[in-house]
């Protein structure tokens, strides 16, 4: 069989391997953990769309602090409750008309507005531009949520790291504290705190942060307990590195994916709490607006002027969906099990 194949004369020379072969050749691209996670995230279309939407919402909400179609707080009773009107669009719902007592009337004409007056998303009961109010409200909602999440992160991570790293009795005691806090419904804690601190942006932020750090602390603690037993941490300990140094050099980098994912899930729940409290009436108060207060205002007139609730509701829902989808995508991207 093989013997019959004509082979070149020098075929059986011993091989000079230094010239030819690299046994360690790896054909798959060499990716760091973050690159690999990014590659997987990019493949997830939903997560990328969600991320883009979030960027757009953030830019618009925070950009509106500088450029806003109208002043969100400018009251204009003459133009109260005007429906949305888009220049040059004749479709009902976008042409400034609404149904009153069974017949469709042009609300802009009735209010005596010039033909050049347009409110893209209409106005509220005080004649404030709804689009500007929504941008403004989104900014407040996002600020509260992000700041609350950062505080929660700082507190939760520190608490969890400390508890897990120290172990023993200290850990036991710290876990009891968490258990007690967790056996009170979150919202009740938030409400009590807000009552004590007086309703307002600051107190709502603190209250949300205070009530949501326990989840983060528990996650971090569990992970720290595991990491603590890893050889490289033991090695660092044996070599006499200080606990603080170990925490920053060895623990935090390995906890980063959990922290990022948990943060992404905390933000939407903070947004929800803020909206909830403002909706109930103990959150942000007028003239400040948040998505929750806008919903509350809009709901009063929902039967006649549904757009006043629909638009804030849509914006709130899209932000929540985008955060949740993005967080899901991040979790899948960071989780090596779903590799492939």
């Amino acid at each position, binding site marked *: *069989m*093989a*013997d019959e194949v004509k*082979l*070149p004369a*020098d*075929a*059986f*020379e*011993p*091989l000079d*391997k230094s010239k*030819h*072969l*690299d*046994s*360690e*050749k*790896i*054909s*798959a*691209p060499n990716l760091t953990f973050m690159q690999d996670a990014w*590659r997987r995230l990019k493949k997830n279309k939903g997560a990328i769309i969600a991320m883009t939407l979030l960027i757009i919402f953030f830019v618009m909400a925070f950009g509106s602090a500088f450029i806003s179609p109208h002043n969100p707080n400018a009251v204009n009773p003459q133009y109260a409750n005007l429906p949305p009107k888009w220049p040059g669009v004749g479709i009902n719902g976008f042409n400034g008309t609404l149904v009153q007592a069974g017949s469709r009337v042009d609300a802009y004409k009735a209010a005596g507005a010039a033909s050049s007056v347009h409110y893209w998303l209409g106005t509220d009961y005080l004649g404030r531009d709804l689009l500007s109010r929504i941008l403004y409200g989104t900014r407040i909602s996002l600020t509260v949520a992000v700041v609350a999440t950062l505080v929660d992160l700082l507190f939760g991570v520190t608490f969890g790291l400390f508890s897990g790293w120290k172990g023993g009795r200290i850990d036991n005691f710290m876990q009891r504290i968490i258990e007690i806090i967790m056996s009170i419904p979150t919202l009740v804690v938030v409400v009590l705190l807000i009552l004590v601190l007086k309703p307002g942006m600051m107190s709502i932020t603190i209250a949300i942060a205070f009530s949501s750090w326990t989840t983060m602390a528990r996650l971090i603690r569990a992970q720290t307990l595991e990491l603590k037993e890893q050889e490289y941490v033991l090695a660092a300990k044996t070599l006499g590195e200080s606990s603080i140094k170990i925490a920053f050099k060895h623990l935090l980098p390995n906890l980063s994916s959990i922290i990022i994912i948990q943060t992404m899930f905390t933000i939407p729940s903070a947004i929800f709490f803020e909206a909830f409290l403002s909706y109930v009436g103990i959150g942000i108060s007028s003239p400040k607006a948040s998505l929750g207060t806008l919903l509350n205002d809009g709901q009063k007139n929902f039967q006649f002027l549904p757009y006043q609730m629909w638009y804030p509701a849509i914006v709130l829902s899209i932000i929540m969906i985008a955060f949740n989808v993005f967080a899901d995508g991040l979790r899948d991207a960071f989780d090596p099990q779903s590799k*492939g």
Partner: protein
Amino acid sequence: MESNENILEVNHLKINFNTYAGTVKAIRDVSFNLKKGETLAIVGESGSGKTVTTRSIMGLLAANSEVAGGDIQFHGKDILKMSQKELEQLRGAQIAQIFQDPMTSLDPTMRIGRQIAEPLMVHKGMKKDKAMAQALEMMKLVGITDAEQRINDYPHQFSGGMRQRIVIAIALINYPEILIADEPTTALDVTIQAQILDLMRELQNKISTSIIFITHDLGVVAGMADRVAVMYAGKIVEYGTVDEIFYNPKHPYTWGLLSSMPTLDTNGEELPSIPGTPPDLLDPPAGDAFAARNAYALKIDTEQEPPFFKVSDTHYAATWLLHPDAPKVTPPEQILERQEQFAKMQKDLAQQGHHVEEEEEKQ
């Protein structure tokens, strides 16, 4: 017990995996056969394709895999072409498998008696009482003490060795024709390992099943197998009887494996190891995949894949060193010793055989 009847034939099997980085050629033209009642050991490093081979025999390939060629003949049918239904009837009845890690391969929330009885209920339509009675018998057979009391226990109440006995009981309850044991002792303590191997040998005699024994540990093979196939980078590089592989190996990779195995003679010396790592199967090298790690590599190894050269009727090796034009190389000392021992064994055997033939002639 052994016969020459092939119970399973794997022919030119090629399996690819589609991954983000490209197609991984996990199995690259593998052929072997399994005879009735024998134990075939497939030996190789992790990633050499042992497990993929067995999964394809069970019809349990991962979703991103693709059979690129070849067939697996079992009772005149190609397993690779079977429907889901046919495969389900095959699995756990005619072909059963023991997995590597007994700590995770039992359902933590089902009583073990039920888990052992399940294949009977699935394949033979047996009623629960009867199946449980047989499960109890099987538990005694695999050496679970106090079987009557323990039949309603949960897996976590057993030690690792006991759990592997339970896994074996599950695999054997239907008296399968083929038992695939995928590193069945790797996760166990050494003493427990020996017990499990003894048990497998004992049971093989009792219920006459053929075993495909997957391992990376040649030490385990010696006492278990009748024949050995050595796999490297998705290919079989050498196969033969257990004596041929252990005492007359021809492939430099087999030399490396054997030299890195401790024997009774090794005392205190450092064991040699094979330098380097297996090639990346995303882009297997041209020629012999082992060339880069092979101290005896020839120029042709980088150009052309070696075919199988026949050493004896039962022994083949895929290395250019066996080509008549190849330079004579001296294998490592340890291998030379083994080969000497083998030559002596052959001589003894030949004389015995001579006697037998003479006696036969006389009759």
